């Protein structure tokens, strides 16, 4: 038995110190493995987020939700995926083919590449960028292109209206999101996501920056086109909005991309305000649980509020949406940036990171 253990240890040792890992191919293999380790669970999480959405909303409306396919309906997302795969892809006659097909890909890819900088634990990150939070902000602001391109390329009225609404909405709410991020950054003194989480060791930023947390959360709802800001889809007015003409896999890509970007926004909220992978208190029962579990739990909590909001709120009217973005959130977040900066300066708390 001892020789067997030695044999295993020897192989593991050889495997870890293998010179292949230093070559270009080896480095490439490691990166691909890391990317797969993030994306495979992510896609599974997206599938079961749709299931969770239907179950949660079902429970809130005193229904059962999916309960036929598999135990408690657990295989429902798989059945849905299979159904979408085997449907026919329809390209409308008047559509601009290349952009029409490229748009869902853009949505999906953007939702995936944002996860490259998300730290799941200390050092558990694919790429520890110096400007991680700016990268996330850039990726989330690009999400609008999938919507605009699909709306325009469909060559149809309702998708076009949806695309225009989405463009105006996302650009508006990005501004206040930017100010919220700036507020967090002046409290941290670094753009690195790991530093942002570590700066919350004493207290999560959700406590001292509570109003900014609320604004950020509402802005993420608008940024992901979720209810009550789902005007780009607005099924009661413009049918399904920008993805009206899509079917089969192209539709599935939109769906996956949208839910993956919801998860990304949940991750961003947890990193900026809820202490990322840190436990609420650094004492015994809490710090037994490993960091990534805390992080997933926080994302799940954010997602639950997303679903809760969808089951509760009626959709905003368009002018009210614009008013909220430009006349309420923007001045308030700007004021709060000045207040925070002034407070940190007056009490000599400015971080030097």
């Amino acid at each position, binding site marked *: 038995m001892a020789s067997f253990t030695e044999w295993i240890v020897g192989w593991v040792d050889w495997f870890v110190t293998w010179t292949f890992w230093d070559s270009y191919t080896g480095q490439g293999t490691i990166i691909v493995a890391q990317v797969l380790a993030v994306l495979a669970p992510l896609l599974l999480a997206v599938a079961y987020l749709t299931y969770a959405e239907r179950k949660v909303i079902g429970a809130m409306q005193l229904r059962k939700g999916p309960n036929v396919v598999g135990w408690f309906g657990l295989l429902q997302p798989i059945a849905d995926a299979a159904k979408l795969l085997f449907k026919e892809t329809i390209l409308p006659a008047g559509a601009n083919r290349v952009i029409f097909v490229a748009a869902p890909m853009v949505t999906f890819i953007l939702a995936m590449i944002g996860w490259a900088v998300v730290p799941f634990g200390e050092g558990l990150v694919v790429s520890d960028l*110096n*400007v991680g939070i700016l990268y996330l902000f850039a990726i989330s602001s*690009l999400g609008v292109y999938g919507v605009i391109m699909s709306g325009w390329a469909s060559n149809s009225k309702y998708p076009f209206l949806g695309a225009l609404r989405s463009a105006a909405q996302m650009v508006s709410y990005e501004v206040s999101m930017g100010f919220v991020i700036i507020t967090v950054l002046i409290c941290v003194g670094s753009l690195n996501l790991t530093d942002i989480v570590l700066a919350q060791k004493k207290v999560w930023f959700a406590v001292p920056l509570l109003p900014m947390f609320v604004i950020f959360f509402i802005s993420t709802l608008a940024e992901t086109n979720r209810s009550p800001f789902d005007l780009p889809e607005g099924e009661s007015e413009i049918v399904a909005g920008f993805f009206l003409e899509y079917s089969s896999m192209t539709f599935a890509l939109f769906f996956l991309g949208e839910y993956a970007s919801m998860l990304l926004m949940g991750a961003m909220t947890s990193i900026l305000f809820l202490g990322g992978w840190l436990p609420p208190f650094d004492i015994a029962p809490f710090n037994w649980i490993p960091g990534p579990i805390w992080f997933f739990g926080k994302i799940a909590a954010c997602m639950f509020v997303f679903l809760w909001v969808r089951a509760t709120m009626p959709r905003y009217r368009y002018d009210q949406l614009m*008013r909220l973005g430009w006349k309420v959130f923007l001045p308030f977040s700007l004021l709060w940036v000045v207040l925070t900066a002034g407070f940190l300066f007056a009490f000599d708390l400015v971080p030097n990171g």
Partner: protein
Amino acid sequence: MILQALAFYLFAFVAVASGVMVISSRNPVHSVLFLILAFFNGAGLFVLMGAEFLAMILVVVYVGAVAVLFLFVVMMLDINYVEMRKGFLQYLPVGGLIGLILLVELTFVVGAWVAAPAAGTVASIPIAPPEQVHNTRALGNVIYTDYIYLFQAAGLVLLVAMVGAIVLTLRQREGVRRQSIAGQIGRKRADSIELKDVPRGSGV
């Protein structure tokens, strides 16, 4: 190093190629999309040079906001492409002249750089080497300390431009019913509901 060189040539080639496509594609929406591709490759080049802050700001500001509005406008325009192409020969001399001037200026810049490599360092503020300071911090140190007045002046110019655009487009129309949120929320039950005891057989 080989990978970096490959990435550089890839980014540079795609940037130039999409720049050509911006001015040569027939559909203006395609032009804007190629412009966005060019911005992306510019950001890639910035990352290769180690200026990751500038790269991200380029993507956030130009791709995430400016190009969206640009695309917005171009999609809404009702352009007759054939008519638009008509003036091509007419504008060719002016466009060519501007291009030539730009080319000459670029040659001067590169020429000065080759002829006197130290000239740039004399005029510029010393910036800490990238090994010691992140470029976000280095940039902030220069912009917000040594060049604060110029930076603020640039901001004011933009503010004036914004005010000008608003003045040009703002118009007051008569008879527009606006929502008064405070009025809606401040409404009391007594203001809006009145109970009347209506006698049988007669109206209110």
